[in-house]
C-alpha cells in the first residue's frame, strides 16, 4: 500500500518506490510520469470521459499518471447504498483519487414542496431519507410551528420524541449490518432487519404506514398511542438491549472486523468540522456536537442524556458510536415512556395553514446528523422557499479526503461507516 500522510491523507510524495520509478524513467529517456490530459504519455489512458474537464478539480481528477485508470463504481453498485456513482482513480488496487457523482435519484423535492401546502409538505419529505422518515417530518413540523406561532401540546412532543428515537434505533442497527455486509459478513444484516421489522411494525401500528409514516402534523401528531403500539413496544423493549448486545457480540470483538476497521479512514476533528460532517460521524471524531443538547427542542431539555463521543475517528469508532447511541436511545425511550404526560396530541390549526410572512429555521438530530429546514412564508398557503439540509449529502464530501491510499475493498467499508442514504443525498 502507498504510504499515506496522516494529515492530508494523500499518498506521500516521499514514497521511495515512486521516486525510484520516476528516476528510472528519466534515466531511460522516457517521458516523466505526470502528463497533461490529451498529451501522449506513452501509455494507454483508461476510463477518461469523452468531454473536457469543467473545473480545476475535474482536470486534476482526469489527469492520469502511468499505471492509473478511472473506474466507475455504480450507479447500481451493491455497496453504494443506493444509486450513486463513484468515479475512482485507481493504481492497481489502491485508490488514488475519487469523485462522487450524484443526481440519479434527484426528484426536486424542495421545488415540489414550494408548490404544496404546509400539510402536504410533511408527506413529500418522507421518502427523502427513507431510513429516518420520522426525523424528516420532525424538522419541517418544528419550522412550520415556529412560522405559524404555535407549539404542539406536550404529549405530542413526547410521542414525537418516542417515535423519533425508535427510528434512530433501527437506522443505527441497520448501519451496523450494512457495514458488516459491505465487508463480506452476511449475518449482522439479518439480525439488523429482524430488529428493524419489529420497530417498523410498531411504527406502523401508531401511524398506519410501514416506511413513509406521514405521522407528524403542524401542531402535533396524527394519532395518539394505541393498544397495539403499546403491546408491541413492551415486548420489543423487554428484548431490546439483549438484541443489541447479540448483534454487537458478532462484530465488536470479532478479530477480522477489528483488523479491517481499526485505523481505517481516520477523520480528524478539524477536518470533520471544516467539511460540515455532523451527527455520529462527527462525534466519533471527538466533537461533542449533538443538536438535541446544543439547540434542544422539546422534550429533550427535560430528558437526561449525555453526548457520547469517541476519540479515534476511524471506521471502528464510527461503528462503536452507533452501538452506544442505540443503547442511549433505548434509555431515552424508557424516560419518555415514564414521563409522558396526559393531554391532547394535536393543537388547533386550520385545514389550510397560512402563516404570517416570515422566516424560520429548525434543526433536529437525525441518525445521520444535523437535519435542518429553513422555511420562508409569504403569507400564502404554501411555503415560498423550503430548504432542507440533509446530513448525508454534506457528509459525502469527506470521501475524496478519506479514500486515497486505501484499497478498493476498504473504501466500501469507509463509505458504509459514514452511512449515507441516497434518498436524502439526492433530495
Amino acid at each position, binding site marked *: 500500500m502507498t504510504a499515506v500522510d496522516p494529515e492530508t491523507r494523500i499518498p506521500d510524495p516521499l514514497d521511495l518506490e515512486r521516486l525510484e520509478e520516476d528516476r528510472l524513467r528519466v534515466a531511460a529517456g522516457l517521458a516523466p510520469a505526470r502528463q497533461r490530459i490529451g498529451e501522449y504519455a506513452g501509455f494507454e489512458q483508461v476510463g477518461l470521459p469523452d468531454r473536457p474537464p469543467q*473545473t480545476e478539480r*475535474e482536470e486534476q481528477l482526469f489527469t492520469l499518471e502511468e499505471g492509473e485508470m478511472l473506474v466507475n463504481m455504480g450507479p447500481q453498485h451493491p455497496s453504494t447504498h443506493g444509486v450513486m456513482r463513484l468515479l475512482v482513480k485507481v493504481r492497481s488496487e489502491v485508490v488514488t483519487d475519487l469523485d462522487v457523482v450524484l443526481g440519479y435519484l434527484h426528484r426536486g423535492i*424542495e421545488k415540489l414542496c414550494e408548490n404544496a401546502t404546509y400539510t402536504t409538505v410533511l408527506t413529500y419529505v418522507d421518502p427523502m431519507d427513507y431510513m429516518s422518515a420520522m426525523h424528516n417530518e420532525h424538522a419541517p413540523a418544528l419550522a412550520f410551528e415556529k412560522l405559524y406561532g404555535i407549539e404542539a401540546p406536550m404529549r405530542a412532543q413526547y410521542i414525537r420524541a418516542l417515535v423519533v428515537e425508535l427510528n434512530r434505533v433501527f437506522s443505527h442497527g441497520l448501519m451496523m449490518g450494512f457495514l458488516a455486509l459491505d465487508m463480506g459478513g452476511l449475518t449482522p444484516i439479518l439480525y439488523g432487519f429482524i430488529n428493524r421489522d419489529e420497530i417498523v411494525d410498531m411504527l406502523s401500528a401508531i401511524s398506519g404506514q410501514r416506511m413513509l409514516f406521514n405521522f407528524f402534523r403542524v401542531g402535533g401528531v396524527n394519532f395518539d398511542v394505541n393498544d397495539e403500539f403499546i403491546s408491541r413496544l413492551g415486548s420489543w423493549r423487554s428484548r431490546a438491549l439483549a438484541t443489541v448486545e447479540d448483534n454487537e457480540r458478532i462484530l465488536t470483538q470479532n478479530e477480522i472486523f477489528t483488523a479491517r476497521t481499526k485505523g481505517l479512514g481516520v477523520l480528524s476533528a478539524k477536518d470533520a468540522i471544516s467539511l460540515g460532517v455532523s451527527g455520529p460521524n462527527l462525534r466519533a471524531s471527538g466533537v461533542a456536537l449533538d443538536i438535541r443538547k*446544543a439547540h434542544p427542542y422539546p422534550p429533550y431539555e427535560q430528558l437526561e442524556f449525555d453526548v457520547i463521543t469517541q476519540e479515534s475517528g476511524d471506521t471502528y469508532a464510527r461503528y462503536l458510536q452507533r452501538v452506544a447511541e442505540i443503547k442511549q436511545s433505548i434509555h431515552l425511550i424508557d424516560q419518555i415512556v415514564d414521563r409522558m404526560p396526559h393531554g391532547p396530541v394535536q393543537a388547533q390549526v386550520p385545514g389550510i395553514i397560512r402563516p404570517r410572512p416570515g*422566516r424560520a429555521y429548525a434543526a433536529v438530530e437525525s441518525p445521520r446528523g444535523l437535519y435542518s429546514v429553513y422555511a*420562508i412564508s409569504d403569507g400564502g398557503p404554501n411555503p415560498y422557499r423550503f430548504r432542507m439540509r440533509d446530513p448525508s*449529502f*454534506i457528509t459525502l464530501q469527506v470521501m475524496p479526503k478519506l479514500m486515497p491510499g486505501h484499497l478498493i475493498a476498504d473504501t466500501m467499508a469507509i463509505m458504509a461507516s459514514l452511512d449515507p442514504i441516497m434518498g436524502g443525498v439526492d433530495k
Partner: protein
Amino acid sequence: MAHLCRSGTAAAGLGRRRPLTAPAKAGALVRLVLDRLGEDVRDLWTDEDTVEVQIDGARNVEVLRRLRDDQELGFFFLADAAAVDYGPGVRFEVVYHLYSEKHPAWLRVRAHVSREDPHLPTITGLWEGAMFHEREMYDMMGIVFDGNRDLRRIYMSPNYRSFPQRRDFVLPDDAADSSAAGVNPLERPETWDLRRFSETLAPGTGAPAEGPVAAAGLALEAGQTAADKGRPR
C-alpha cells in the same frame, strides 16, 4: 407504561400559542455581533432562537471569517448555506446558518446577490464543506461563486440548460393549466428550443400559445418577469 394509555377527553385549550415577538434568548449575542461586525451589519432581526444579520454579499468572506475566528463569537460550524430566489427583477439571497457552542442561538447571515449578475465570493476557503452547498446553489439557482475550484452541476447532468429552483421555472403541473395542456414539453427542459417553442405548443393555429408556458419560455429567453404568476394561487 402507565401513562401510555389513551388520553381522555381533549383539553379545551389545545396547544400553547406562543408570542410572535418573543425576546431572543441571545441579547448578549446581538450586542456582540453589532460590536464586532460594526459597519457590515446592514440590518438585524431576532427570532426566539435565531439572530439574523444582513450583510453586503461582496463582503461575505470577511464577515464570516470574523464570526468564525473571533474568540467570543466562536461560530465554528457552518450548519447550512442556501440560496433563496425572491423572483425575477428582485434579487437572490444566500443564507448562511452558523452554530456556536458559546451562544444559545443560531446565527443567520443573509447576503444579497444581484439577480442580473449573480456572483458571490466563495467561502470554501473558510469551510471546505461549503463546496457541496455552493455546487447545489449553482446547479439549482445559477449563482456563481467566484474562486470555487469545483463549481459544476451536482444533481443535473452537465449539459442541462436551466436552473430549476428559480421562481420563473414553472413546474409541469402549472403548465397543465395552460392552453398547452397535454403537451408538457417542460418535462424535458434541456430540449427546449425557445424560438420554436410557441409553434410546437399551438400546432396548426400558427398563433403563439398563451398562458404560463409561453410566458415561461419568453421569460427564460429575455429575463422578463412575466412567468411569476403571483401568489397565492
